[in-house]
């Protein structure tokens, strides 16, 4: 597992209070991991902080799964 993937997963486990093995690349934040709209906003903010990036709102809306987040960050992190 890449460094980005493990850091992303750690944030999700912490913020959503879910079990690590639920955090698969296909898992949807809202449908599978019990996040509501505020949780999702918080996750995006935590990714921004952890990876020192800014995720524009129109991009953030497209990040719906764990895999989406890992891919976006891998492509955009400095």
């Amino acid at each position, binding site marked *: 597992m890449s460094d980005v993937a493990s850091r992303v997963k750690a944030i999700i486990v912490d913020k959503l209070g879910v079990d690590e093995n639920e955090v698969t690349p296909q898992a949807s934040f809202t449908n599978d991991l019990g996040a509501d709209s*505020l949780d999702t906003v*918080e996750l995006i903010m935590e990714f*921004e902080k952890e990876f020192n990036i800014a995720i524009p709102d129109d991009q953030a809306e497209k990040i719906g799964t764990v895999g989406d987040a890992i891919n976006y960050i891998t492509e955009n992190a400095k």
Partner: protein
Amino acid sequence: MELKRVVVTGLGAITPLGGSVDELWNNLVNGVSGAAPITRFDATNFKTKFACEVKNYNPTDFFDRKEVKKLDLFAQFAMIAAEQAIQDSGLNLETIDQDMAGVIWGAGIGGLQTFQEEVKGYVNGGAIPRFSPFFIPKMIADIAPGHISIKYGFRGPNFGVVSACASSTNAIADAYNLIRLGKANIFITGGSEAGVNEAGVGGFNALQALSTRNDDPQTASRPFDKDRDGFVIGEGGAAIILEEYEHAVKRGAKIYCEMIGAGMSADAYHLTAPHPEGLGAANVMKSALQDNNTPVEAVDYVNVHGTSTPLGDVAELKAIQKLFGEQAYKMNISSTKSMTGHLLGATGAVEAIACILAIQNGIIPPTINNFELDPEIDPKLNLTLNKAQKRDVNVALSNTFGFGGHNASVVFKKMN
């Protein structure tokens, strides 16, 4: 329109005197102080280094980790107290009319800790605005009744009440009046507060409102004592189930007592100081007793606001003597803040419970820590000094007063 009768059918409390109503009552009757050195933050540089904290509190004993993150401590105390009261009431949440069940909750401040952390994060984070999306919904004082309504599906009247240290008394008063008017059958009401943090203690210290008796915290809250030097800040939550009388009888509820009055008034005098003659305080008690034409001679017990501040305690007793006349010498008066400390917006609900249980148990909880009575105070008043007293209590009244000059009183009566 005939007004409905209102009864008390459930109680809940998490306070500096313990995590349940039973512990609260036992410690009140036994004259136990809830004060101790502050553990919630490093108070080394603060003028006051002690408080009445909820002891050994661990949020994950009550909530899962994800919930904890969304609940400021004041809202956690609200949820815990409400749950206890619902359990105690024996209400069947499946069968009640949820549109006629409401929540009115008092908090003088709300999520002060959350506010402090978020602003600190902004300042220390290079002024980049990365506020949590939970910042506002954790902080706002009305979020506690919001959370409670979501948990129990109560879709009736729902709001928060803010009148500083009178908040939860005002909340109880509103719930009572809405039941009388037929707007709801059931309310979860009460209040909670969590101000033992840097901003809370520092802020009240700046007002010179807090006792600084750091060498002896347990005797610091000493209402009516000659050497009182301010209040002791407390935290916690207390909940009361108010119910329309017929509704309670129909379901065979355990009824603690009847609520027969609620008064509200303002001093219209000063931001933080009480009216020196207790004008607003006398008016609010009078107004509360008028709801059911209760004569002053019927009152057995007044649980005073009595915060242990030099001005407040004297002004309140003046108001009592003015309103009650001879009865002031016949009834019991006590300040349970001598034990619980001052729970700010939650204090009214805690003291309402003290009144309700005084009626139920025939015991007046004491005013502890009286070493030498303030010579300005009439020694013929029965301030229930230092030891609980047995007394058959038919009617009990609780006062609370808040910064801003808000006054609120509630009256409870034994069921006939």
